[in-house]
């Protein structure tokens, strides 16, 4: 994976596969602490202790189509390379939270990448069935994007309509520029 926005898309796909109806994506950039934290939190089916222990093995997957599972171990590796930290908390029947930490200015820290595109693609694919919340904090600035609120405002117009997605994309880019995380 080239950048963190692609890792995030991939980790969120796990949440979707786990039947989550609400998925939170939280990015916190703190330059003073030189820290970047990603958190993906879902209310999907969760994992038992046994599964959590196995999940970081790049050969472990519960998928039927393939014998290797790569997503989580790839993100864990990316965090390790940037002298960070990786953690999974999960409760069977309740949900899962994946957290990855990175040294912000580490030379091997992957760039954040295009978060606007990741969010738009998620909404296009599953926005009618799943609520996505995207929070991005940079130092003292932040913004929150909540598809539940947007769906309410849109009323009977589907959030995955191409024209709607185009407007949403522009807005996310504008907000990311405002908080100083996208040029």
């Amino acid at each position, binding site marked *: 994976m080239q950048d963190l926005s692609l890792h995030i*898309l991939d980790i969120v796909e796990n949440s979707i596969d786990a039947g989550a109806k609400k998925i939170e994506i939280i990015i916190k950039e703190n330059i003073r602490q030189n820290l970047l934290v990603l958190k993906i939190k879902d209310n999907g089916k969760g994992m038992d202790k046994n599964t959590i222990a196995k999940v970081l093995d790049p050969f472990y997957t519960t998928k039927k*189509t393939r014998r290797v599972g790569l997503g989580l171990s790839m993100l864990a590796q990316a965090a390790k390379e940037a002298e960070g930290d990786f953690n999974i908390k999960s409760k069977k029947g309740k949900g899962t939270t994946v957290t990855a930490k990175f040294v912000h200015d580490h030379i091997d820290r992957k760039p954040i990448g295009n978060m606007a595109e990741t969010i*738009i693609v998620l909404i*296009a694919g599953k926005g009618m069935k799943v609520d996505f919340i995207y929070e991005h904090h940079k130092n003292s600035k932040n913004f929150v994007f*909540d598809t539940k609120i947007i769906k309410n*405002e849109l009323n009977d117009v589907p959030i995955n309509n191409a024209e709607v997605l185009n407007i949403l994309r522009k807005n996310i880019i504008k907000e990311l520029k405002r908080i100083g995380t996208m040029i």
Partner: protein
Amino acid sequence: MKKLKIGDLEKIREKVRRTANLRQGKARAKITVHMGTCGIAAGAREILSALLKEIEKKKLNDVIVTTSGCAGLCSREPMATVEIKDKPPVKYVDLTAEKIKKILNVHIIKGNIINDYALAIGSERTH
């Protein structure tokens, strides 16, 4: 915490309402982009973005875009499946933004399968 304010939302809501086919089941075609780890690593996100932009440009309100997990054919990603009402699904492999745009214009709009990009029948195998 600052909530995203989207001033244009109301305008777009009225506009889409006037033009779109809002009732369910009216879609003529469905495109499913495979979003497993291999797909994403191979560029599936860009395929979907290109598709959305082209759909918006052409104002195709009867085409649904969706995503699915890994299709088990990692070496041929990015992949997408095209389903046209009452026709068997067609799997396209090794996609690029240009190819998916062409698929939209030739297969979805004009109804002609692009055999050069399609997965040959019988070659479908996992792993």
